[in-house]
């Protein structure tokens, strides 16, 4: 093995730049893609102004929940400033929370606690108004119920009554529990909730999987190059059998690329805030072995490098589309279980060990090497 490593290092050294480009492409490409996608998402958020005439807990809670909805880019401003920017069309619309907002909500009043401004160009006004109204409604409803219960306690003189806070807390908890139930249900029926934060984190590894497929295919072109070189006639006169020579070279390639996979884990942890469990490292390893085996098996079928590159690109595009990583196709094309079954990327993208395609890859590479060995015997 050390001998083979030595000979490979001699060759790798000479094309270190192009190899580094391909080895780093999945890492750099994914980070660039994800960060720029996030930036675009930030940019495309509608700018909305909010003016707080009072700084009460309830007013702040309203602001927080608008921000958390991720629909709008919220600016908290003074009244004058907000109206000025609205006139300049720098803000889509402006909402003003009046003095006495909290008191009004807690006492169950719902009129004239918020006023809003918009221009003829506002297009986010209606959905945001709906959102605020429903938030306020939620709060007033909860306040009403709490007040009602407290009043009941007072009337019937219960001992150790619940406080107002306890009641609203309880009702919020109930609401969260029900929401969770909703999300879990939606998830299992195949539609991913848009505000599911884990969707974003799977995307990073999904993009990485596609770029990895591309780079592994291009890194595997050595098998065609060497086949066409006169040098390969010398392999008849070496101390190793062709089978053991090539399988060791392939193992070295797997190890080299896997090293960069681990680098990807580190880079994504630092730059994309991904947290990765130890078992996921094995998922990556199984995926890596599969990518290398399939790429080399495919490359081995070709005599001309240019046609291999062409086919590689087609394979990458095809799998990118049916995996629904770049374009979420689940809305357009029903996710056939057959399609997932034949998609070599599917297991990895859903976070599982690649097993079936790994075995197919190993068998096909073994057959290809045995054929080489027999024709040389």
């Amino acid at each position, binding site marked *: 093995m050390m*001998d*083979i490593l*030595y*000979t490979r290092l*001699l*060759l790798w050294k*000479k*094309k270190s730049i192009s190899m580094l480009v391909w080895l780093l492409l999945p890492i750099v490409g994914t980070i660039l893609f994800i960060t720029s996608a996030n930036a675009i998402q930030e940019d495309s958020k509608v700018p909305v102004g909010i003016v707080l005439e009072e700084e009460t807990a309830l007013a702040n809670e309203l602001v927080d929940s608008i921000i958390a909805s991720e629909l709008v880019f919220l600016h908290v401003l003074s009244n004058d400033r907000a109206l000025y920017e609205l006139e300049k069309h720098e803000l889509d619309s402006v909402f003003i929370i009046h003095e006495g907002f909290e008191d009004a909500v807690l006492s169950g009043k719902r009129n004239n606690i918020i006023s809003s401004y918009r221009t003829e160009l506002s297009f986010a006004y209606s959905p945001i108004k709906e959102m605020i109204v429903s938030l306020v409604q939620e709060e007033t409803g909860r306040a009403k119920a709490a007040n009602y219960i407290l009043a009941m306690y007072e009337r019937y003189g219960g001992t150790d009554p619940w406080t107002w806070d306890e009641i609203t807390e309880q009702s919020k908890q109930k609401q969260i529990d029900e929401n969770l139930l909703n999300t879990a249900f939606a998830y299992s029926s195949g539609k991913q909730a848009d505000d599911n934060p884990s969707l974003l984190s799977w995307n990073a590894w999904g993009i990485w999987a596609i770029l990895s497929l591309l780079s592994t295919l291009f890194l595997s072109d050595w098998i065609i190059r060497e086949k066409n*070189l*006169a*040098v*390969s*006639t*010398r*392999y*008849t*006169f*070496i*101390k*190793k059998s062709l089978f053991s*020579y090539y399988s060791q070279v392939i193992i070295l390639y797997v190890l080299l690329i896997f090293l960069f996979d681990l680098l990807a884990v580190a880079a994504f942890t630092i730059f994309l805030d991904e947290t990765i469990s130890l078992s996921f490292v094995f998922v990556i390893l199984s995926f890596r072995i599969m990518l290398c085996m399939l790429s080399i098996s495919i490359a081995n079928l070709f005599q001309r490098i240019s046609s291999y590159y062409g086919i590689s690109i087609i394979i990458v595009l095809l799998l990118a589309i049916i995996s629904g990583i770049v374009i979420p196709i689940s809305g357009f094309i029903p996710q056939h279980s057959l399609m997932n079954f034949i998609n070599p990327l599917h297991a990895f993208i859903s976070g599982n060990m690649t097993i079936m395609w790994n075995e197919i890859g190993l068998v096909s590479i073994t057959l290809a090497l045995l054929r080489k060995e027999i024709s040389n*015997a």
Partner: protein
Amino acid sequence: MLNVQAITKSYDKNEILDNLTFTVNPGEIIGLVGENGAGKSTLLRLLATIDKPNHGSLTLFDLSYKKNRKAVRKHIGYVPQDIAIWEELSVKENMQFFEKLSFQSKSIDELKQLCLEMNLDKWNDPVKSLSGGMKRKLNIAITLIHSPDLLLLDEPTVGIDLKSKKEIGAYLRKLAKEQNRMIIYTSHDMDEINELCDRVFCIGNDTFYEEILRNSGKDVILI
């Protein structure tokens, strides 16, 4: 000793080699001549275990090509007609690359010495920058790393200047005479053949080359 018994080789229905029989003794240099397409390269490939004859048998030091292919290969050095070296590596790295895979290990000094014996002194230059003649020398040097007893060279000196030709020729003669190696090589240069070889095989019963070489008093055999 190399023993070739009634070998026949055809591609599809096209018979290239028809019932060839000959022996080569240690220390002998054999020239292989014949027109283009006569089958010189084909014969060398059979002798090098790269291809198999349709009929007939081959033995090297009583090792059968059929039964002891692996063992036979350790004794064989084959210099293909196409230059078989890594263009992107230097002379040194090429030697190191094939030494690591070779049946025999050699020190870096021994490898360097091997190149110097053929006047290949551009040790650290990338092969890309070498002249055609230099590449041919390296092509031979790599084949000699495992000290083969039977050296098969397919037009090793094509496109080489006279001085380099003489250097390579002198080195091959030294290998044969001092180390008892068997050498079979092909060339279209009759002067070179005349000067270097002990015997000449004319492949394809070709009398054209036979007449030329016989006039200069060579031992010429039609095969």
